[in-house]
């Protein structure tokens, strides 16, 4: 399944490393990354694929959120379908 992952947190060294490590641990393949700094907050959007992951998507979402909370990041993963539905005819 194609997914969109949003990451928001106070800027510091190693955010991309932390998130990509989490994703690698969960066998989620990153397809694209864009990031920007909004004030002191680091904001990142990742496109990824979960086909290789053994975890069902609802568990994956919770696992990623919990990992994010431990390092001060707000990480949300959603199926890409909702964005396609809303913004593409």
């Amino acid at each position: 399944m194609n997914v969109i992952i949003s990451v928001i947190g106070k800027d510091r060294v190693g955010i991309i490393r932390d998130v990509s490590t989490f994703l690698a641990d969960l066998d989620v393949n990153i397809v694209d990354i864009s990031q920007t700094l909004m004030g002191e907050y680091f904001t990142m959007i990742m496109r990824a694929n979960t086909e290789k992951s053994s975890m069902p998507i609802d568990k994956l979402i919770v696992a990623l959120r919990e990992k994010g909370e431990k390092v001060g990041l707000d990480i949300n993963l959603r199926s890409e379908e909702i964005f396609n539905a809303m913004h593409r005819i």
Partner: protein
Amino acid sequence: MISDKEIFETMGMVSSQHLDVRCITMGISLFDCITGSAKDTAAKVYDKITSYAKDLVSVGDKIATMYGVPVVNKRVSVTPVSLVGAASGGYVEIAKAMDRAAAETGIDFIGGYTALVQKGATQKENDFLLTIPEALACTKKVCSSVNVASSRAGINMDAVKLMGEMVKKAAYLTREEDSIGCAKLVVFANAVEDNPFMAGAFHGTGEADKVINVGVSGPGVVKSALEQVDGDLTAVAETVKKTAFKVTRVGQLVAKTAAKMLDAEFGIVDLSLAPTPAIGDSVGRILEEMGLERVGACGTTAALALLNDAVKKGGIMASSHVGGLSGAFIPVSEDIGMIEAATMGALSLEKLEAMTAVCSVGIDMVAIPGDTPAEVISALIADEAAIGVTNHKTTAVRVIPVYGKTVGEEASFGGLLGRAPIMKISGYSPLKFISRGGRIPAPLSSNKN
């Protein structure tokens, strides 16, 4: 490729503008549960509902997690119990079985304690109507609806008269909880068979065995979008259309996914803008954002007509099957903008009635004094039914004559049902008119004026 801007827009709708799917409602046919024994019918009803809807809550939660959009309520609607129980007469036993099945499956509401008597009622249906107050008082999650009029049949004034009395009785039997029984009882004109919203949901006789209908929400999203609009009312209408399209697409996605996961037919998406008592989730606030000082001011009906029409135009292309009630809801107790306007006297019952001529659904979740006579409630139902029948649209009355309370006080129901200031209702008597009974003939559809 979806842009970052679009991604942030969707995320903002959910996180700060209360975008949610109001309900996934599973319609279940109970025709194969009919027996001549009340006990056997109730047992079959319980078994079928708990079997068909056993995964409804978990699937709803899973979809909510997957798409990151809350699914607020999971509900079941069933074949009108007046039909299912006619052979056995065990209507209340069936209501109790429905309530137990609702508790077992963990759903929020179950609708279908329903009779369709728009042209006439059989003796069995009259028996059924008399059981409604008791059924509502002895269950927690069961919702009831009665269709008393249609554009083809006219208005069954005998049923209207009886329903005024039943509303009063339901209020009395649930007097310890601000007459909450009446919050679960709706009297319709032109009722629809695939409505996912409560209290009026029932599974029509022309429906398949197991159907998923979805009701979207999103008043907060529409209001936020309008905050950015500085243009004229054409620009306002265009913005509402675009926003409604996006909101409905979410409903369509959720409905299709839920139907697939639950092995059910995809029925319809209901386009209604359904408010909640939460701050920022109000239809009243949308009308105020358009430029009215308060809901209820002159201009409210026009603003609501614009909103209702634009929501439909935007939503209709976003879904392969649109149905249900599909319009803007104006339940007083469930909308913070309406609660405030009614409390301060900006919104009167008469203005609400005018508003129902241009939107769905009707006089909804309005608290009135507990000593309001039954014939006044019947007459209010007749007025609403006349608006629906004449305009070929669904209208309804869900009023709560709050036992022991009067104007200046408030009734509180909790949860999605909210709280309502007791509103003033005309004290002049329609007793002779209501006592006449009979039928108001169906209206002419030509020579319109």
